[in-house]
């Protein structure tokens, strides 16, 4: 709450000069009331970007309850895209659709398609296991495996059947360096992965996620279980990974979204409301709902 308040205050100071036009109501409430899809307001600057992931008219149901309504969205290459919105708006659900983690829930039903670099993610011919190898994912709570740090990091290669020690060593070092951890853990690679602080565990999970050279990195509220210092380090890490990797991050933390992302998508009750460059979304949102949310007036 406090952080959202801070955002509000920051935004208030900075935007007083820049708020040149009043934001207009979007009509998202009407869409919700009539249980319809909503036409996303996408900023012009975002439309032209090269997309790695392309979501096309995606609907999702948990049993009889619809959770995502006609989502159209693109994740631009080499940038950090943040998904924000109040609890239960479907951010995590959308994120987990990209690597089909929702397949694990038996009652989930989907409609529409998602493309990863042009390849369909949904559809009969897709090999889910191969797909997931092209996508890295980091979860809310650090989930290191019950094995050594080394084995944790090279796990994606192990399951691919890589046995060549030199390849594994190289990838391990590269991934840990990528996650800014190499200096910290290089002397105890053989120790258990379960110990140590949550922040370090989460960075090890990031190392594991990038070990498989993914085309997209999905971060599902990666800092929600961490203290502010650890959060700061993860955010720094996201900045370092940007460019090399395309990142899609779900966050509850406005500050984090405004600090570390290039594009921001605001979701509300299963609809994608507004999608545009982060600065615009936070400073000069086109829609009233977005403004209300990013300034902390609701959500």
């Amino acid at each position: 709450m406090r952080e959202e308040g801070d955002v509000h205050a920051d935004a208030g100071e900075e935007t007083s000069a820049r708020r040149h036009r009043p934001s207009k109501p979007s009509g998202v409430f009407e869409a919700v009331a009539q249980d319809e899809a909503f036409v996303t307001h996408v900023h012009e600057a975002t439309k032209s970007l090269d997309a790695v992931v392309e979501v096309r008219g995606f609907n999702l149901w948990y049993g009889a309850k619809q959770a995502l309504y006609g989502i159209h969205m693109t994740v631009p290459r080499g940038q950090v895209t943040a998904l924000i919105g109040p609890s239960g708006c479907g951010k995590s659900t959308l994120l987990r659709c990209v690597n089909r983690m929702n397949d694990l829930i038996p009652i989930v039903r989907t409609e529409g398609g998602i493309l990863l670099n042009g390849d369909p993610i949904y559809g009969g011919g897709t090999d889910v296991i191969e797909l997931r190898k092209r996508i890295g994912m980091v979860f809310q709570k650090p989930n290191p495996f019950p094995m050594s740090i080394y084995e944790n990091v090279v796990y994606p290669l192990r399951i691919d059947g890589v046995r060549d020690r030199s390849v594994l060593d190289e990838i391990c070092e590269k991934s840990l360096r990528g996650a800014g951890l190499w200096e910290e853990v290089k002397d105890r690679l053989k120790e258990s992965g379960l110990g140590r602080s949550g922040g370090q565990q989460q960075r090890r999970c990031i190392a594991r996620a990038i070990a498989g050279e993914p085309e997209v990195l999905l971060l599902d509220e990666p800092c929600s279980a961490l203290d502010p210092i650890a959060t700061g380090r993860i955010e720094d890490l996201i900045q370092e990974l940007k460019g090399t990797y395309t990142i899609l991050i779900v966050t509850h933390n406005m500050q984090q979204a405004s600090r570390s992302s290039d594009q921001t998508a605001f979701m509300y009750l299963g609809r994608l409301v507004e999608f545009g460059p982060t600065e615009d979304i936070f400073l000069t949102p086109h829609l009233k709902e977005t403004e209300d949310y990013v300034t902390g007036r609701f959500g």
Partner: protein
Amino acid sequence: MPQAPRPARPGRRRSSLFARGEPLVWLTGGSLVLCVVMIVGLLALVLAHGLGTFWPGDVVMIERADGRKFLGEVAKDETFRPGPERLAELPPGARASVEAAGGEAGRRMLRTGNFDLTGSHYTWLHSYEIERETRPEWAVVVERLAWGRFYGFPRGFLIDGEAVATDAEAAWARFEEHHEEAVERRARLRDLETHEVGRSKRRVDAARLDRLEAELEHGRDSAEWREADAAYRDAEERSRAEVEELNVEIGELRELQGRYVLVLETADGAKKELPLSEIVRAYPANRLGLGDSIAVYVSRWWEFLSDDPREANSEGGVFPAIFGTVIMTLIMSILVVPFGVLAALYLREYARQGTIVSIVRIAVNNLAGVPSIVFGVFGLGFFIYIVGGGIDETFYPAQVEEKRAVFGTGGVLWASLTLALLTLPVVIVATEEALAAVPNSMREGSYACGASKWQTIRRIVLPRAMPGVMTGMILAIARGAGEVAPLMLVGAVKLAPDLAVDGTFPYLHPERSFMHLGFHIYDLGFQSQNSEAAKPMVFTTTLLLIGIVVVLNVIAITVRGRLLRAQEGR
């Protein structure tokens, strides 16, 4: 009904005893203490009885008023109140002493042994009959191969029927000189008589069965039969020569064994000549120092742990029973753990959680509550009669023709399978709990890396659940090793002639019946002819059974601890 507000009474404002929870602390604490006391009491009882059995006690000589003398170890002392008729029969002096003690008298059970002479192992002596009690220096306790113990005095030593010693000390010196050789010769004799001759006979038997099989398959005038017949005759011929050769050695040893004889005299003055070959152990009980006593104690324990039983199991050792218990428990664990883990994996990881899975889960849990004898009956009906009988029909036609069963009778394999079934719910439940305790985030993490379901189970879920699986195994071992009732139906026997593992091909003989410590305890306690002598052995064997279960558990717990430490990197 309206009530006037009560005035505050500060002095009495105390919450009730129950509200403060004090009595519940006492109740719960008391229950725990009761449990601990029972466990400790049980262990203490078994320890006290079990550890004392083998300690060599003093030998006392008791002279009764009627002049009879008794020599033996005190087994029990108790007081009792003689009835009026009994008192009336007593001589006046004895009656006066009983009356002086308030109508109570003591009686003492003396282990007098010498069953072959007296017809009983124990004698009751009443305190008022006892004239005198002494501890004669040369009273000797002799443990024999047959007839139980002998109590007496050494009076001489014969070699080839010639007396080489005539007094106690000299006879004893001679005994100590020659006894060890006699023990070695006896071991060699037993080896020759039972194992070597037996092996030779078994070869002939196998050849004969081969011939019978050839007859059943090809008929009597086939080439195969003639070949088998020739092999059989050859084997028989060779065996005859072998046995003859062995018999020569056996004869020589027997003759040697007969040469040395210890002459003993009982308290009554009867003479008894005991060949050294018959004597397992002898010691002058009242001359033993502490060191000698410990030596006797240790040697008895060693015999108990390493030897075969004698005298309808009430003497000698229990090695075959220890071996049978351990091997059966091991085979059971090897069978039950993989099977139970696979079943639990399907239930928890693959099966769609719904009504059917719930019903299966309830059924599995209820299986743990089925009386164990039911499993025994199932083992007998299914494993032995159907599976074992089927194996015999298919692979051992010759034995079937002779109405002999190989797998179609109780054996260590069937006992292990029956117990595996019995302990399966324990393993399944423990494994399921362990699997359920693996955080879902780990599974998701693995899937997100592109792992398949099996890879996730194999690399993440199972290693993480392993300590829980080990817990299930520990519980299964504890339950399985102590089970007796079903074993009586599926292969545990009073005396097994051969161990399930030995030096003859194929080394492991899962079809053989076996001895089991639990069954051995039952047998000692209820089926023994010499029940007084067997009673202490019941406790000693119980102590051993507890010990074995503890050892098996400690091993499993150590392994589990290693796994846990390896995982947590401590």
